[in-house]
């Protein structure tokens, strides 16, 4: 056992003493989680940008623009008409609203009024909902103003304009009469949805574990090149102990990366993940599976650079496929089925169930069985390959 622990300790300490390794294990997860996971969903500064072209240029059209500017969901910029195409093309605006000439007159006389909207051609399906929400916001303002004018009866245009603007100021009194309560289901159990940011931490944890394990297993190739590997093999210690020492070292590196991601999420981004026996079991199986995959790849290449190159490719491609970068339901159904072939998909599924606070044998049985299968097949294949290397 002392041989096993000595090899594992030498391996892990050697890795951690290298400042470049620490940089990659800490800085890259912070950058990725921040840029792709946390910032896009941050509450501040995440309003939808829209542009407004004012062809009416009246008191009411100005009041309308001011009202939109105060709405927390959008960020309004007023532009001339000839800049509309540029705003849409350059991803500056999700849509352009054109206030037509005669807008004020039409509203004061309660005539049917159309606002021209030009949505960006780059809007995806989910952002179409934004148009509905914006229309509700506009109608709330307009109905508040029109009811005030209708209530006050016929007066001259100036008075009606003032009345409309005062009335529209009451728009905040209009409230939605239907709200929704969200829940998710899994195998007959109703659960609370994931909290913001949890998906990112879980996804990037699986990806960076794979990066780190590939980096660690690649060092065997360096040891082969420098002759250390041959000297260790020539030592009197039994080969299975040497193998166990290396495998324990790789396993520890995977776990160290997970603990770093967990700590970064908790301390830096205030994103909590539970830490319990289920998490330990899931991550352990995932790390074993990843070690196995990395060891198998190390048998196919000659240099640590080749190994890391293929590792980066495998880690990024399988993480994208497995839903580490985005929710998996963004992907078409056939691709979600292809994702069953990568361990990230099952690890994320298990960690998501644990994160929503409802781990149980029935809910986690399948992900853990499949992960155990991945671990058994790849780890045994990798260890055998290492044994005969």
């Amino acid at each position: 056992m002392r041989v096993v622990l000595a090899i594992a300790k030498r391996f892990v300490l050697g890795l951690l003493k290298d400042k470049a390794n620490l940089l990659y294990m800490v800085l890259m997860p912070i950058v990725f989680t921040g840029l792709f996971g946390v910032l896009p969903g941050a509450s501040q500064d995440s309003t939808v940008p829209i542009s407004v072209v004012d062809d009416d240029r009246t008191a009411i059209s100005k009041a309308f623009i001011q009202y939109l500017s105060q709405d927390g969901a959008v960020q309004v910029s007023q532009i001339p008409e000839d800049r509309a195409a540029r705003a849409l093309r350059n991803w500056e605006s999700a849509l352009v609203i054109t206030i037509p000439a005669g807008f004020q007159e039409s509203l004061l006389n309660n005539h049917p009024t159309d606002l021209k909207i030009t949505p960006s051609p780059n809007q995806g399906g989910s952002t179409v909902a934004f148009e509905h929400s914006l229309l509700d916001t506009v109608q709330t303002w307009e109905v508040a103003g029109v009811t005030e004018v209708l209530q006050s009866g016929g007066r001259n245009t100036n008075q009606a304009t003032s009345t409309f603007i005062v009335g529209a100021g009451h728009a905040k009194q209009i409230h939605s009469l239907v709200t929704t309560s969200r829940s998710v289901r899994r195998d007959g159990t109703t659960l609370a949805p994931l909290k913001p940011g949890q998906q990112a931490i879980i996804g990037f944890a699986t990806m960076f574990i794979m990066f780190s394990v590939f980096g660690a297993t690649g060092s065997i190739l360096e040891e082969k090149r420098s002759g250390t590997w041959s000297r260790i093999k020539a030592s009197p210690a039994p080969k299975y102990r040497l193998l166990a020492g290396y495998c324990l070292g790789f396993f520890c590196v995977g776990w160290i990366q997970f603990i770093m991601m967990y700590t970064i999420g908790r301390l830096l981004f205030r994103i909590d993940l539970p830490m319990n026996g289920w998490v330990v079991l899931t991550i352990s199986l995932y790390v074993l599976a990843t070690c196995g995959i990395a060891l198998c790849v190390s048998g196919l290449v000659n240099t640590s650079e080749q190994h890391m190159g293929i590792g980066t490719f495998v880690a990024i491609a399988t993480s994208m496929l497995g839903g580490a970068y985005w929710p998996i339901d963004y992907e078409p159904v056939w691709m979600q089925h292809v994702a069953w072939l990568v361990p990230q998909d099952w690890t994320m599924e298990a960690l998501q169930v644990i994160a929503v606070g409802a781990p149980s044998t029935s809910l986690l049985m399948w992900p853990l069985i499949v992960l155990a299968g991945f671990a058994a097949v790849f780890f045994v294949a990798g260890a055998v390959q290492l044994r005969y290397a």
Partner: protein
Amino acid sequence: MIQIALQMVRVNLLKLIRDRRALFFMIVMPIVLTSILSFALTSVFGGKGVPPVTVGIYNEDKGPLGAEVRAMIAESSPSIQVVNPANAEQGKEQLDTGFTDVFVDIPEDFTSQISSDTPTRVSVTSTLSTENKREIVESIINSYGRQTGIQTYAGSQLGTNSAQVNPVRFAVEAPGLRPITSGSYYAVGMMVMFLLMTAFNYAVIMVDERNSDRYRRFLASPASRQALCFGYWMSSSVILLLQGVALLLCARYILGIELGPWYQMLLLTLSYSVALAGVTVLFGTFVRSRKVMDGFNGVGVQVAAALGGSIVPLYAFPQTLRAAGHILPNGLALNGLLNSISGISMSGLFVPVVTLLTIGIGLGLVSGTRYGRTE
């Protein structure tokens, strides 16, 4: 000087052609990633409407408003299909078995609560893998809630005259621009990112060479320092241009992705290659330590690629980060390429092309004056 540069281009090209591993990472890897991203994020980009959603709605409401919500969900998009489970248990079962993506349970007192101007709550359930679809359904129900609130307010203010109010409507107009699909976005996004990686790899090679005997032999040769630097600049430009063109051709003819007009794409790829060649010789000239260069090559390239919008589209970032993305050469090139795809005149590309060429030539000149003198 030109002859030396051309010799260096020839040597570097021959080295590249013989290095199958390098070719794999320069061509195969970006194409595989482009195809994954292209298929995976189809629903997030333009050109596609609402993704197909099957919604199970159990309406327990005794009044007419529950049926109104159901009708609104069913009619909001042809992609949304509504099924009617016999009870809530069956609705949840349909969700568990994957027959539906989302289950909506409209409560018994829905109409009576709304009629008494009291907010009511509708339960919307999804699975862990259909949360995106649940948000679409939620947005429709929330819109119904706001519309009901508006009607109730008008009714309370005007009584029976509330029907006189004509709500504003949106008249949707097509923008006259070609939509950027996930395929076209990531074809150019990955091209821009992998060219950046290649540029930094060549900077690493330059730093390695400066720490080797080869560099001293170079300096001892009759070739001027400027000629050697120009040779590196030229080699990087040519290799980056060839890589960029190869990636765009693969995207167009292997993956069948629609891109912009060929002359605009070529011009932008050329200017971007020149800009990156400037970056290569700048780092290759001024950075002395391999470790520092490895740091730039690893973390720096990833951060620059991310800020430039190659991995997640810039519009998903907060405003402050978007500005940073537009300053970087890769962000500038990506933006120009996207503009070309969505349809832009040649004059519209003047600013990015001139800026990129200026960066490339300027950095090349600065490096040329210092190459060989920084030891």
